[in-house]
């Protein structure tokens, strides 16, 4: 039987997604028995020219991790879309920009100024190094999720995708039972649905960060004032973070019926605050509680800013 051709590509990514593939433990042997890795820049040496030589739709599945930050990322996304039968957004960055998408709070010029200093020091797309021409891919103005550049067939969410989801995907691939186009390899319900912590829907009277308290083992982190993105986040990971006393940060993205994950969570937090005071006192107390969140975008949009309604910073004079 002909082996299944699998490609793995990283764009603007940290490499964690590539490593996460190994978390499927001994299942990797099944994968190796039935599939060939025809492209995997992290592990093997493949030239772009080899990739271009493949006929269109000749790679059965390409797992694409990382966001679109440079022209190279962009062009490879287009190329891989052509070469792959199925293109999979693998991990938060490909799905919605991920942590890398937070760079959208700064413009390209601001990023370059911080990194390199004055404009003459910025790297040029075309330059000459010791007599040799050097070409660097253009740095795009904004980080884009993969879905903004090409059609994506499946999503395996997570930062990095947890074992259960990756395993489920390979199982389906090896058995030739890939689901309908558009499927997300995670739960259709939110994280709270599978979190064993007990939720009492208590009013929050103070917001704390995880290191500031010793959270009670059995009760909901939100009830204890720790901002946990569970209500606005897709489950499927088995609530690994809440089980380790850490709040969900939203890496699996929103459930299907949520348009803006951050906005949904912002609503939830606003609804949960309650002081029991009245009048001006109440307003002041609420303002003080909410002032504890000193990075609203970084808290509610840690992984999905590039895919949110705002997409990133707007250029109005900061006030």
């Amino acid at each position, binding site marked *: 039987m002909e082996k299944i051709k699998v490609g793995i590509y990283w764009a603007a990514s940290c490499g964690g997604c590539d490593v996460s593939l190994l978390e499927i433990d001994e299942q990797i042997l099944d994968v190796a028995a039935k599939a060939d890795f025809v492209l995997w820049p992290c592990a093997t040496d493949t030239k772009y020219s080899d990739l271009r030589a493949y006929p269109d739709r000749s790679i059965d599945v390409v797992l694409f991790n990382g966001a679109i930050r440079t022209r190279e990322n962009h062009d490879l996304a287009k190329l891989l879309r052509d070469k792959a039968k199925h293109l999979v957004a693998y991990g938060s960055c490909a799905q919605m920009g991920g942590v890398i998408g937070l760079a959208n709070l700064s413009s390209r010029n601001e990023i370059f100024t911080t990194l390199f200093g004055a404009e003459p020091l910025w790297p040029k797309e075309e330059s000459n190094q010791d007599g040799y021409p050097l070409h660097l891919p253009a740095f795009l103005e904004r980080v884009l999720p993969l879905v903004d550049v090409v059609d994506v067939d499946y999503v395996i969410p997570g930062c990095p995708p947890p074992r259960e989801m990756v395993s489920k995907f390979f199982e389906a691939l090896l058995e030739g039972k890939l689901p309908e186009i558009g499927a997300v390899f995670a739960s259709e319900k939110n994280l709270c649905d599978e979190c064993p912590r007990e939720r009492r829907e208590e009013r929050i009277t103070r917001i704390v960060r995880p290191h500031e308290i010793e959270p009670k083992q059995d009760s909901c982190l939100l009830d204890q004032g720790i901002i946990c993105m569970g209500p606005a986040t897709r489950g499927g990971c088995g609530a690994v973070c809440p089980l380790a006393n850490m709040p969900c940060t939203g890496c699996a993205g929103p459930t299907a019926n949520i348009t803006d994950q951050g906005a949904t969570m*912002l609503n939830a937090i606003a609804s949960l605050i309650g002081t029991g005071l009245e009048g001006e006192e109440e307003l002041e107390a609420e303002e003080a509680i909410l002032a504890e969140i000193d990075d609203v975008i970084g808290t509610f949009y840690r992984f999905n800013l590039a895919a949110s*309604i705002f997409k990133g910073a707007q250029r*109005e*004079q900061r*006030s």
Partner: protein
Amino acid sequence: MAKPNDNGFEPKIVAFLCRWCSYAGADLAGVSRMTYPDNIIPMRVNCSGRVDAGMVMAAFERGADGVLIGGCHPGDCHYVSGNYKTRRRVILLKQALAEVGIKPQRLHLEWISASEGVKFQRTVTEFTRLIKGFGPSPMSEDGEN
């Protein structure tokens, strides 16, 4: 209708008005023949608590230069606590707007009861003047972005 001393910019302002108080206040302003700028696009909602953060963001995304939310006075909410939720939401939303570089003053929350036609007129007039002064929102078509 451009008036003298005008910068010629006519902002689009989306006004989410709660049906029990602020929308009725707007009606009162209307039947009392009070005049106010026609820049606002009133949207009747059942409660100011219905206005979720995503709706405000969507308004900006679709070109609003300012967003006004009108609700019942504290203690008067038809649904007991909707307006309190909105008040907390607006605090967070303003901070989010500031962080993405949109002037937080482009979002304004005002308590307007059904009997406060005059307050509705004054709020809309003042808010329109403020947004005119700011110029187009960076997310609108006329904005820089």
